[in-house]
């Protein structure tokens, strides 16, 4: 079935998603170096310029970069249609996202408003092009694909998050406008960390988990129902926060939202455990680790002041760490190792079909990213999460936490780059066979 204006193509060239996947860990390395050299400023307050720089290196540089690459790869696989103009727009989005993130972070660290002005332009281009291209596909009537329904809501939450982010960057870029940025910060955080990330992980996991781990398919009612509920609650809470309403309205909204997050975590954890083939798979551990984090975050949120007695700044930093590093980055690290090995392998298979003499050179997918390297990555990552949490409580541990985080991202960079180089060498050999 052909959709008007949409291209039937389910396998984009490997370079398209790979450029995003190979760039992203470098932003994690930069974030680690920032923590290494300026931990005190990062831990001082959630409003410090250093924590904002650190956070955006991870959220824009690592998380958004990987997710954009994943969507370029993913959407064609689940729908059979590529994102319109993929070949032309992907390098533009890649470069402007790099530039926009670096300028934004530079703006935070150097308090230079010109940097913010450049950041706004580059990020508007990157996100604008991507959301417009994606919207065109997502508005098409692609029936029976519940993941597409969730991706539509992801697109909405990305638009709101980045729209608010750019509006707040304007406060830094043009302070003469007198924008009251702090009013929007919590809403931006909520849409970004709880809306966009959870919805995106929900959409992607609903495909990746059954595909790679042979679990039951996620039911349509679950995907549509929970994602719709999350979006409605987000709009409700946005109105509450922007009107600075306190009392029961706010309490109920936050309670229902917490229950939605808990439901997502428990449900997905349960699905992951229903995998049919009980072959040892380290990437499953990343999922289990990731899905525990929202539960811990919800417990911390509601029990701080009752059971836990953390100072406000530590409480907020720990909450942010659990969601960003504990949940989102753990999910991404597990998925990306599977995805990069898989797409490299599929492209080599495809090549060997066109060059049959090279068929004998086709490797086992496990050799592209080995189980051993996945194990090392997992234990490095787990250690990093523990040390980051402890460092928030005991800042003397910041150096160790930063070093662990640095090794975590260096390891990922090395693993993904090595896979890409193996692919390149094998591709050459297969073509020459």
């Amino acid at each position, binding site marked *: 079935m052909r959709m008007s204006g949409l291209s039937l193509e389910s*396998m984009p060239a490997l370079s398209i998603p790979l450029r995003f996947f190979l760039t992203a860990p470098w932003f994690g390395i930069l974030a680690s170096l920032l923590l290494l050299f300026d931990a005190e400023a990062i831990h001082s307050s959630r409003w410090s310029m250093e924590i904002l720089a650190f956070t955006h290196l991870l959220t824009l540089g690592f998380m958004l970069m990987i997710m954009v690459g994943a969507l370029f790869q993913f959407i064609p*696989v689940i729908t059979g249609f590529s994102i319109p103009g993929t070949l032309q727009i992907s390098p533009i989005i890649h470069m402007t996202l790099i530039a926009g993130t670096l300028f934004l972070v530079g703006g935070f660290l150097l308090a230079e408003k010109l940097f913010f002005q450049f950041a706004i332009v580059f990020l508007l281009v990157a996100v604008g092009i991507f959301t417009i291209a994606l919207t065109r596909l997502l508005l098409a009537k692609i029936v029976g694909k519940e993941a597409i329904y969730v991706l539509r809501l992801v697109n909405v939450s990305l638009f709101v998050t980045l729209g608010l982010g750019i509006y707040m960057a304007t406060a830094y870029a043009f302070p003469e406008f007198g924008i009251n940025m702090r009013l929007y910060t919590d809403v931006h955080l909520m849409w970004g960390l709880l809306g966009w990330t959870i919805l995106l992980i929900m959409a992607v996991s609903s495909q990746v988990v*059954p*595909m*790679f781990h042979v679990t039951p398919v996620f039911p349509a009612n679950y995907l549509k129902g929970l994602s719709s509920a999350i979006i409605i609650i987000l709009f409700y809470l946005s109105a509450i926060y922007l009107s600075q309403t306190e009392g029961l309205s706010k309490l109920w909204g936050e309670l229902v939202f917490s229950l939605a997050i808990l439901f997502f975590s428990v449900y997905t954890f349960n699905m992951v455990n229903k995998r049919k083939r009980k*072959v040892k798979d380290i990437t499953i551990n990343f999922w289990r680790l990731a899905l525990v984090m929202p539960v811990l975050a919800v417990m911390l949120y509601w029990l701080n002041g009752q059971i836990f007695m953390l100072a406000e700044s530590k409480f907020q930093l720990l909450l942010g760490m659990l969601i960003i590093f504990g949940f989102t980055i753990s999910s991404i690290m597990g998925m990306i190792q599977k995805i990069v090995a898989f797409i490299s392998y599929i492209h080599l298979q495809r090549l060997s079909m066109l060059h049959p003499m090279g068929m004998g050179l086709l490797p086992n997918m496990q050799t592209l990213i080995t189980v051993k390297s996945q194990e090392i990555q997992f234990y490095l990552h787990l250690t990093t999460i523990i040390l980051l949490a402890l460092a928030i409580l005991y800042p003397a541990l910041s150096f160790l936490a930063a070093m662990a985080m640095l090794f975590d991202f260096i390891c990922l960079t090395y693993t993904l780059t090595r896979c890409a180089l193996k692919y390149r060498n094998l591709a050459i050999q297969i073509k020459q066979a």
Partner: protein
Amino acid sequence: MPKEFILDVSELEAPEPFERIIAIVRELKSNQYLKVFHRKEPYPLYEVLIENGYCYRVIREQQADYCILIWLKSDHSTTEYCNTYSNL
């Protein structure tokens, strides 16, 4: 009637379904087709099949969420048979 080969990949994790299908498809001859039972629609496979001179049809059968018939494009009698089969 063409010879039917059956392959159930519905409980295999990626990329095993792709690997196993390709391994059999490479050996298909005229008057033969492969019937694959799968739990999801393998869009990337379709492109590879078309690029390499194969045809496919997706049909509904009780045994699995997706049932895919694959045969050689140049095999006209199997084409006719599979088209008829998929219209039933």
